């Protein structure tokens, strides 16, 4: 029997080892992006716009053209790209703080304009790069380096559900929340990324995929415990699913 290659590194994923912490899910998101880019054969026309935070490692890991954006501004930068290069594929790659706090205005208005770009949102409930501070997505009661006594809604407000919120906007073509903490989740996540890119290629409008991810380092948990926490605490507040999938290019 001849051996067949059934699993390989996507060509658009650079030949570099990830420096992400053990148990971090950013690596999987990168891989899924690489797979989608390879599948659609769009490596030559894809431009990535990562935000600030652990996202900046994307500069090195994906073998595509990449442009930096100031913290939170990736959707605006991506808008500039897409308006100049409407036939290219443009995506942003943003974390909780980048997208849900400082960049809330940019993502909401980019979505509302129905910009034909894809926003990849990695929700791990903390500011990973800067040392695990409270994020807009941090769960109530969750201890972080800036919510030592646990997130308290009287002081800190409630965790924001970005996918549900964006799904209400007419400009949004696709909004889904997926998880990466088990194989079934990764499979669905792959489908969601493929769908988002496909819809962008079909000029359907703004597409959004939120990834529930683990940050064991800043959660102060082992990778295994972090996985369990996603089931026990995170998913009950952030239900998975496709919140919006438009069938035609625009509302009208």
């Amino acid at each position, binding site marked *: 029997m001849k051996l067949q290659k059934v699993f390989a590194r996507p060509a658009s994923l650079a030949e570099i080892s990830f420096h992400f912490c053990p148990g971090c899910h950013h690596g999987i998101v990168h891989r899924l992006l690489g797979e989608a880019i390879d599948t659609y054969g769009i490596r030559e026309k*894809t*431009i990535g716009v990562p935000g600030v935070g652990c996202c900046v490692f994307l500069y090195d890991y994906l073998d595509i*053209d990449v442009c930096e*954006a100031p913290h939170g*501004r990736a959707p605006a930068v991506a808008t*500039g790209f897409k308006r100049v290069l409407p036939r290219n594929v443009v995506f942003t790659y943003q974390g909780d703080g980048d997208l849900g706090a400082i960049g809330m*205005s940019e993502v909401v208005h980019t979505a509302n304009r129905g910009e034909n770009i894809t926003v990849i949102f990695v929700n791990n409930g903390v500011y990973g790069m800067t040392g695990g501070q409270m994020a807009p997505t941090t769960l109530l009661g969750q201890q972080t380096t800036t919510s030592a006594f646990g997130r308290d809604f009287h002081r800190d407000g409630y965790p924001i559900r970005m996918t549900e919120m964006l799904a209400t906007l007419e400009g949004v073509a696709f909004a889904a929340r997926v998880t990466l903490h088990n194989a079934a989740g990764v499979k669905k996540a792959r489908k969601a990324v493929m769908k988002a890119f496909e819809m962008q290629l079909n000029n359907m409008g703004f597409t959004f995929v939120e990834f529930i991810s683990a940050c064991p380092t800043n959660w102060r948990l082992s990778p295994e415990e972090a996985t369990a926490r996603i089931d026990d605490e995170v998913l009950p507040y952030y239900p998975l699913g496709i919140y919006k999938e438009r069938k035609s290019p625009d509302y009208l």
Partner: protein
Amino acid sequence: MSERQMMKGSVALAEGAVAAGCRYYFGYPITPQNDIPEYLSVRLAEVDGVFIQAESEIASINMLLGAAAAGARAMTSSSGPGISLMQEGLSYMAGSELPGLAVNITRIGPGLGGIAPSQGDYFQATRGGGHGDYHVIVLAPNSVQEMYDLTIKAFELADKYRNPALILADAILGQMKEPVLLHDAPQRVPGKEWALKGAPVGLPTKRIKSLYLKDDEMEKHNWHLFRKYSQMREEDTMVEADLDEGMEVLLVSFGSCSRMVQSAVRMARDRGLKVGYIRPISLFPFPGDALREASEKAGKVLTVEMNTGQMWDDVRLNLAPGCSARLLARPGGGIPTPGQILEEAEKMIKAGDEVAKSIC
């Protein structure tokens, strides 16, 4: 188009952008610069361009960043507070070496201030304005014709140096109408091999970024940027001078204020006074050499500004040794009248050498 047309400064600036091949505008409304987006929202549609009213100045400057990184000539415009919000993006653009144009039709500050003419944003414009060790190219028109011409020039310089450029003007220049001669020749946008358009097979992918975390990388990058600023000083300093043989005082001013100074110079010469006049057109790079030479001939220098004294710092840094210098300052929407300027110039001619004193 060889005939002169009466045109508002803001409209001339917008036409200059179109003539320069700019097809992308991103901006947010603020008085007194609204004529620019209003006009371009129609004008860009006529040339298959893109006009986006962004949700904020922060978004505007970052859309400009993206469009510039994609290789396009693109612009934004705003006024004082909005330009403050853009400083982060301008810093990133300077760090990432991206060309683009921002226009500041200034307001009075600090804070919400007022909408009358002011030159209070000179420091912000010429010192970089945001965080880090950088400068933007700053051009200061003083006529409607220059609103047109210098906008084209700003795009050229931005592309030449891969650096953001800024037009610094005010409500006088934005609202005033004067005859303008528009140029026939359309500008060609130079090829930008560094721009991101997706990497063709077989060619390496590219990065546009200002982040350099490895040892020594950032120091090298800062020196690289510094060399560009030095080259700007040598090759692209712009100045207007109207010197007088045997002049007894040299008047220095920029932008709209220089128009009042020009009137004062004419009045002074009518009275037989020997006065010279020099106007920095590029505020960065600042025409220090030209000022030094002229000040050496005059011995006395009167700086006139519509702020409490900002270009005054650059003037004093670039005076010939032994010159006496005074400042006539009118902040907060005050406009120095030609008569007032003439009076100060006369005082200075009569007075002995008083070094570095300001008149407020």
